[in-house]
């Protein structure tokens, strides 16, 4: 799959933003007034910034409101609803903390649940696709939820929670990669099943439909980014999970916390790049590619 920067930015930032909103909704840390304002401003900048970035890849962003209509079948539509619901609930809850110094706990819990539901809906946009065997697994929503919760804990200064959740997310990340490397093969979709010619013999793409490239090849057959996959995996694991854990084990300081967050963000961005670049869409088989 083509690793479009807009989608990588969107899933990385809004995952982190909604993760922070989850912890804030639980009242962790228990902040009010200006401190609460800063926490909520960061969470909204990440969550809303990510959502806005996602509209950049739309052909007609001016029609985006229509995306609220098909929640019965479409995870993208469900994501639109859950994200708006989470942002409204958390805005009201945040207003209580910032302006009235009161914690409306039930509203906070609701906002926290909706924030997680948003991350789940986003992950199911990918996790539902049979056409991309690497994504089609319950591990996809599990991993994206774990990353969101761990990153959120890191931003919310929940050091104990982050020290537990970051290693869990790292293990899920490795499991997701290991499973993913055999996913296309295990899916049973091959050039033979794609063309229905397997009963005659081994199928080889002889000539593509056009001498030039096309939308399908640009969007679905991205092989360049896979060249450095192993190096990027090491970078993602090191920066995204290992370094933040090491930094959190040091005596706490704001500079160290900022470093841990930046390392985590860079590592998750690398992991998200691989999420797309390594994903094989079965349509590539028609072109003899994967």
């Amino acid at each position, binding site marked *: *799959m083509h690793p479009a920067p807009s989608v990588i930015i969107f899933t990385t930032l809004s995952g982190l933003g909604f993760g922070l909103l989850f912890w804030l909704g639980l009242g962790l840390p228990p902040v009010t007034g200006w401190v609460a304002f800063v926490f909520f401003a960061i969470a909204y900048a990440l969550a809303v910034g990510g959502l806005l970035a996602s509209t950049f*890849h*739309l*052909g*007609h*962003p001016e*029609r*985006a409101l*229509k*995306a*609220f*209509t*098909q929640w*019965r*079948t*479409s*995870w*993208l*539509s469900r994501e*639109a609803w859950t994200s708006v619901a989470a942002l409204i609930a958390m805005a009201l809850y945040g207003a209580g903390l910032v302006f009235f110094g009161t914690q409306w706990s039930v509203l906070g819990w609701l906002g926290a649940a909706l924030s997680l539901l948003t991350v789940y809906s986003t992950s199911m*946009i990918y996790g*539902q*696709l*049979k*056409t*991309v065997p690497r994504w089609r697994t319950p591990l996809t929503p599990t991993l994206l939820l774990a990353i969101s919760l761990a990153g959120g804990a890191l931003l919310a200064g929940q050091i104990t929670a982050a020290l537990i959740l970051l290693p869990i997310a790292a293990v899920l990340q490795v499991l997701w990669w290991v499973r993913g490397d055999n996913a296309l093969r295990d*899916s*049973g*979709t091959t*050039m033979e*099943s*794609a*063309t*229905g*010619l397997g*009963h*005659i*013999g*081994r*199928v*080889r*793409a*002889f*000539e*593509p*439909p*056009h001498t*030039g*490239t*096309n*939308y*399908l090849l640009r*969007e*679905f057959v991205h092989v360049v980014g896979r060249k450095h996959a192993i190096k990027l995996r090491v970078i993602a694991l090191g920066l995204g999970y290992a370094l933040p854990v090491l930094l959190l084990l040091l005596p706490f300081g704001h500079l160290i916390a900022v470093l841990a967050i930046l390392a985590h963000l860079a590592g998750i961005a690398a992991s998200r790049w691989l999420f797309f670049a390594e994903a094989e*869409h*079965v*349509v590539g088989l*028609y*072109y003899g590619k994967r």
Partner: protein
Amino acid sequence: MTQLPERTEKKLGLVIDLDTCVGCHACVVSCKGWNTENYGAPLSDQSPYGADPSGTFLNRVHSYEVQPDQGAAQLIHFPKSCLHCEDAPCVTVCPTGASYKRTEDGIVLVNETDCIGCGLCAWACPYGARELDAAEGVMKKCTLCVDRIYNENLPEEDRLPACVRTCPAGARHFGDLGDPGSEVSQLVAERGGMDLMPEQGTKPVNKYLPPRPKDEMDHIPATAGEIDVLAPLLKPVAEEPKGFIGWLDKALEKL
């Protein structure tokens, strides 16, 4: 509405004969022509005369080489367009309801004024049947020439999808695959019509007729008797070189 209909009154679709297709790409050209001038946004090209041309097509013809365990490889031309699946994954993922499957005839269509161009339907399609038009920013796909097949302004013989009407080899057939008595259904039954990527669970309406077995005249044993009056004339003229070439062959062998 992106909920798929429980069942459709008809299952209009194509039957494509891989035995007959000669790979001329006439269907590609006629499809591009008709669908650029008629229903919906035109199928644009980007730098068509430049160094890196590309464009939107609803129908593309691949060519595959198939190598059996024994015998010669076969070359098979393979036209591919929307298969109008019964369980169309492209429809259910659409967030706006722009994509839908018609209850009356099963055709999968895009309402272009509702399409936000998110591309998710193209991600969900295993066949590469949907392409986002780079100029219009909306999703394009085969309409089964819905503006031809019901069009009473056209002579009756033209009320077929453009690709079917134009195919010079008769490799493309159009009809109701939900009616077991229809010509297309009988063709599928007779020739063992198949689904592409059945494991994806899309239940495609379009069927492909597999290539017939190739003849095996080149390795029929001599004991099988003559198979044609001309057969003796087809025997190799000289199995062992004679005369000057024979002498040269032997001389060079000895060197």
